[in-house]
Structure formats: structure tokens, C-alpha cells
């Protein structure tokens, strides 16, 4: 397992990773003090949004929330390891990835609130929708990467425009046959895709050992896909591994698999009770490995962070949480007639008829009671 930042924040040298982290990438490397502070801020921000989302769920504003607490380094690192032009394919707990890709947090909450099944345009933000049917997105990622090959944006020697795909799935999802099929296609076509697992130790109540008795990173070797296992609570290790992998993929060298060892600090979702299947001692043990704390210690060692910056981050995080709170509380429920809009891209007579029937049916209530918000009123009668 590659680890660059020890628990106390000390950085260990690593020739291959250091070349990428400290090498000339954009403004002087991925690990300049300024960027490190940025990662720190990102992690603080997304954690605040995450905690706020949990409380919004408790307030009944969300139907469910899947917290990513503890996985901030694994996500912020991977998100920033991708280049602007890359396409990211998340599962459903990728809030840090989304943040790093510039997707506003309230958009993530739309599907958990139940106002949409998505929330953003995948092509505009170069990020696939959150996906619920585990593993199903893995072949999508490979297909997109096959499209990149056909578009001629792979292996031209231009890392600034050559493009790759980052495909995420959990340790649990790794068992789905579709993930294996994605490995097969990626290997066969040498598609520019990096598979990335945040092994957060659990798939709801099932430990990773049930999915694999050997390190998960080993899985892809069965297809000859090279892999690396990194400390997922170490933002630099993640950043380095994913950047190296993506750059290798975009250079036309085929797929790579990265496993980041991390921990799901919260329960699986707000519906879950983790105390039923894991000891709190385990949670406490991992709390010691907190990824935010680790990066802060590193910055402190470098003398590159001060109390003022930390306080400012906390303040901005608080503001973000408040914004999120207000945004969600202020969200109006969508008019259900919208459900008829996007089932098909082209006109569909059955959907049109049913939409008409729905409107006529709703109109009854308006006429009967002279009330505008027929849907609401209808809800009451039922």
C-alpha cells in the first residue's frame, strides 16, 4: 500500500509519485502549498455539506442521505487527479468527487430529496449521474472510453487534451458481474479508463473480506490490468496514484485499477444502524486516521497553514452548510406533470395520452373546488 503522508503528517518520499506530485503540472505541481491548502479547504467544505445533508434528512428535507464522512481524501484527491477534460463515472456516495468537479452540493441532494433522479447534465459537467444499481455504471465508463478512442483523443501525446475516464465502484459493488465484464472490455480494447475503488471496508453490513479474500487491488490482475493500492486517507497518495493512472490511460496504455483503503465513518445511510454489525472501537480507530486532520498536520509541519486559514475554512464551510440548508428548505416540490416529460426523447402517443388523462383528471379537482394547487388538495383528500 502506497502511503505518502504518515498519520502525523510527515511526508515520505516516493520517486514515482513525487515526480507527478511535485513535477511541473500547471502552476508548479499538484502538491504546492497553495494546492495543499486548497485540498484541505475542499475536504472541510464537503464534510460540512455532508454533515448538513444528514441533518437535512433528519429534518425530513431529504428522503435519505448517504454520507461520505471519512472518505474525503479518497474523493477530493481523485477528483483533483482528473483533468478538466476527463469523464468521471461515480456511484452514489461521491460527494467529494462531485465537489472537486465543480458540481454544486445542492445538485447532489436533488435525488436524495426526491425531486429528480439526477441533477446535472453529464456532458456539461463531464460527470455521469449518480448510479444506484451497483456496478451498472462500470461498462458505461468503458464504453465512454471506447468513444474517446474513436474520437482520436487518446494517445496523441497531448496530456492536456488527451482524455480518460475515471470509473468508480465500491468494494461491495466489485462483486457484480458487470464490473468484471467492464474489466474484460477495458482490457480487450485497451480503453482509456481508470477503475477506482474506495474500499471503505463495508458494503452496508458486509465486510470487504466477503467480496475478496485477497486485496481487492489484485482483482484486475486477472485481466492483466495493472493495479495499485494506496492509503485512501492520504490525499497525496490518492492524487498521485489516480493521476499516474489517468495519464497512463490517456496516453493509450490501457486501463489501470486503483484501490484506496479508507473507511465509511458514518452508517451506510441515514436508514442504517451501523452499531448492529460493527464495534464502535473500529470507528474510533479509524477516527484517528482522519484524512482532514492528516493533511492539516502535514501543512502544519510545512508551516504552510495558520489558524486564520483554518478558521476561514471553517467559516466558509459553515456558510456553505447554511446555504445548503436554505436552498433545500426553499426548494419547491416539482409539479408531478413533469414526470411525463422525459421518459422519451421523441413523441410517444401512449405517454401523451396518459399525460392528457392525468391533466384532465387533475382538472376535475380544480373545477370542483376552485383550488389552484390541485395536486396538494388531492394529496389531502387521499
Amino acid at each position, binding site marked *: 500500500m502506497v502511503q505518502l503522508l504518515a498519520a502525523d503528517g510527515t511526508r515520505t518520499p516516493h520517486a514515482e509519485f513525487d515526480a507527478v506530485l511535485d513535477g511541473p503540472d500547471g502552476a508548479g505541481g499538484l502538491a504546492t502549498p497553495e494546492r495543499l491548502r486548497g485540498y484541505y479547504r475542499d475536504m472541510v467544505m464537503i464534510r460540512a455539506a455532508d454533515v448538513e445533508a444528514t441533518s437535512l434528512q433528519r429534518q425530513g428535507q431529504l428522503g435519505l442521505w448517504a454520507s461520505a464522512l471519512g472518505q474525503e481524501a479518497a474523493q477530493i484527491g481523485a477528483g483533483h487527479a482528473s483533468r478538466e477534460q476527463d469523464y468521471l463515472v461515480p456511484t452514489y456516495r461521491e460527494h467529494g468527487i462531485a465537489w472537486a468537479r465543480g458540481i454544486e452540493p445542492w445538485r447532489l441532494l436533488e435525488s436524495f430529496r*426526491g425531486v429528480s*433522479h439526477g441533477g446535472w447534465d453529464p456532458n456539461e459537467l463531464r460527470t455521469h449521474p449518480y448510479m444506484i444499481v451497483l456496478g451498472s455504471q462500470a461498462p458505461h465508463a468503458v464504453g465512454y472510453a471506447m468513444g474517446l478512442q474513436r474520437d482520436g483523443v487518446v494517445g496523441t501525446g497531448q496530456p492536456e487534451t488527451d482524455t480518460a475516464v475515471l470509473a468508480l465502484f465500491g468494494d461491495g459493488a466489485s*462483486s457484480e458481474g458487470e464490473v468484471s465484464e467492464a474489466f474484460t472490455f477495458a482490457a480487450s480494447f485497451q480503453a482509456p479508463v481508470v477503475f477506482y475503488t474506495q474500499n471503505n471496508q463495508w458494503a452496508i453490513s458486509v465486510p470487504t473480506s466477503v*467480496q475478496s479474500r485477497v486485496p481487492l487491488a489484485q482483482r484486475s490482475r486477472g485481466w492483466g490490468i495493472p493495479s495499485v493500492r494506496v492509503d485512501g486517507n492520504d490525499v497525496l497518495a490518492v492524487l498521485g496514484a489516480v493521476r499516474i493512472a489517468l495519464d497512463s490511460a490517456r496516453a493509450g496504455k490501457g486501463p489501470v485499477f486503483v484501490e484506496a483503503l479508507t473507511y465509511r465513518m458514518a452508517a451506510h445511510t441515514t436508514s442504517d444502524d451501523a452499531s448492529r454489525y460493527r464495534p464502535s472501537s473500529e470507528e474510533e480507530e479509524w477516527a484517528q486516521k482522519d484524512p482532514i486532520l492528516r493533511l492539516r498536520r502535514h501543512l502544519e509541519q510545512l508551516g504552510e497553514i495558520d489558524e486564520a486559514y483554518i478558521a476561514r475554512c471553517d467559516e466558509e464551510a459553515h456558510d456553505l452548510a447554511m446555504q445548503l440548508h436554505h436552498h433545500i428548505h426553499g426548494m419547491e416540490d416539482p409539479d408531478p406533470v413533469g414526470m411525463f416529460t422525459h*421518459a422519451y426523447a421523441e413523441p*410517444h402517443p401512449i*405517454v401523451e395520452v396518459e399525460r392528457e388523462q392525468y391533466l384532465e*383528471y387533475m382538472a376535475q379537482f380544480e373545477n370542483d373546488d376552485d383550488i389552484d394547487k390541485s395536486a396538494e388538495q*388531492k394529496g389531502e383528500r387521499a
Partner: protein
Amino acid sequence: MSSTNLPIAKAITAGLRDAMAADDKVLLMGEDIGVLGGVFRVTDGLHAEFGSQRVVDTPLAEAGIVGTSVGLAVRGYRPVVEIQFDGFVFPAFNQITTQVAKMHNRTAGAVHMPIVIRIPHGGGIGAIEHHSESPEALFAHTAGLRILAPATAQDAYWMTRQAIECEDPVIIFEPKKRYWVKGDVDPDHRPELSPWEATVVRQGTDATLLAWGPSMPLALESAEAAAEDGIDLEVIDARSLAPIDYPTIIASVKRTGRLLITHEAPVVGGLGGEIAARISEECFYHLEAPVLRVGGYHLPYPPSRMEHAYLPDLDRVLDGVDRLLEH
């Protein structure tokens, strides 16, 4: 005397426990069904009682779960599989359709497939995508499968037991939104009623209302509301979705002359269509109105803040009754 009051989820738990105690070939397979007791706690306590050889937390792969069950059944076991949510049965669709359903026929009866596949299904629980679906029609078309849809705690207990005892594969669609609704269960007296029979749960004369599983309370509620308007509905709980108990439905429709079917699944291609087609054929000279269906729209199940408009509700069922009686 021995009847106890249990939520539907717990009635199923009891059914599983009693089946496991009665036959040590019965074992449970699924995701999170062990220490956690399942995301709906239906298998709660069974891992502690029967151990991990009989309550198996599997890897996260539905085809693998159902596929290994086929092998276990060949070896003489009676696997009871939990699919965590309706929307996650599709990775196992190939195993269910081409293997579970066909192995008995393929081997000319030499191998039985006493596999039970439990699927919590239906909407109305405010869930995210893929957690609110009603895919029963996608299985009812495939010969070799049987399908049960309990609506009461008593049925939940006994259908679980009877499905496990059945030599054919049985899919049980469990009404997840009603898991915590209580009802009387009598585990000591095997009911005379076959699980494959429908029941008239309310007698009436003006029209027949057919429903099952999660829609039963709505059907009964509708009958009461209609009664206030002087309309006397007969309500049938289909109970078995494959095979459908046509004699019971036909007898009712021949009396009432009218049939309304309601289910949560989309009307287009839903099970209501098959039933309507058959009843229209069998009761042609008795029907005073076309068989009508009230169900989901031909849309992906919508985000939860729209589901009230998607799912049949009292108004939509009563609207259907009105249209039925207009004829």
C-alpha cells in the same frame, strides 16, 4: 387461540424461522441478511439462531446469489433468497428466467427447484430511484415460476411457509411499505385456503375490485368510500399472481358484471392487462362495462416527491369506479 399479532415483516421472520426449524435443508441467502438481519430486518435474529451456514451473507452479486441457489437446490437444499429491493432483481434476471424457471422442465422432472425468491416491492416509501418498483409482470410471463403477493400478516407467514414447501420456484413480492403494519397470525393452524387461491375479502354487488399485496388497503378503503356513495364493491385479493386464480375472479365478475383492477406497476404491459384480457374473454356476456385498470403510468418510477401522483390512490380508484359504473 394461538393467534398472535405481528407486523408483516415479523410474520415473515416467523415463517422463515419455523420453516428452518422444520427442515434443516432450508437456508437463507442474500445481502446483509446475517448479522444485520436484512435492511428491513426480516431475517432479524435468524443468523444468531441458525448460524452462518444457514443464514448466508453473500457477496454483493444477485446473479451469483440466485445461481448458487440453483446448485444448492440440485444438491437437495431449499434456498430462500432475499433480493434487497425490487429494482435490484434485474442482475439476476437471466438466472431466474433461463435457469430457475426451466431446470425442472429441462431435466424432465428429475431435478426440483424449491427456491424461494423474496422481493420487497412497491412504492410509496419516499425512496430513491430503483427502490419502489413492481416488476411482477416481468416474471409472470415466464412459465416455470410461481408468484405470491401476501397482503396480510397471516398470508405473509403462511405463504412464506408454503412457498418454501413448494417443489416449484416461488417469487414472493412482499409489500415493503406495509412491513410494519400489524395483523393476526396463527402459526399453529395451517390454513385450508391454498396459497394459489384468490379470496373475496369484501362482498359486494355493483362491481368487483381486484388488487393484491401493497394495494389491498387501498382497495378496501376505496370500497368503503364508495359505500358512502351507495356503491357496493366486491373486493378480491388475488394473492397468487402466477398462477392467477381465475375461477374466483370469474365467479365474482359474473355476479357483479364489472371489474376494476388496480396495481402499482405501470398499466402498459402490466399484469392487469393479462387479467383484463382473460376476464373479457371468459365473462364476455356478463360484462356490463369494459374491464378497467388503474395503475402506474408508462414512465420510469418518478422521484419520490412526485410518486403520490404516479401511484393509484383513493381518488384515482374511485374515478375508475365512476367510469366503470357510467357504462
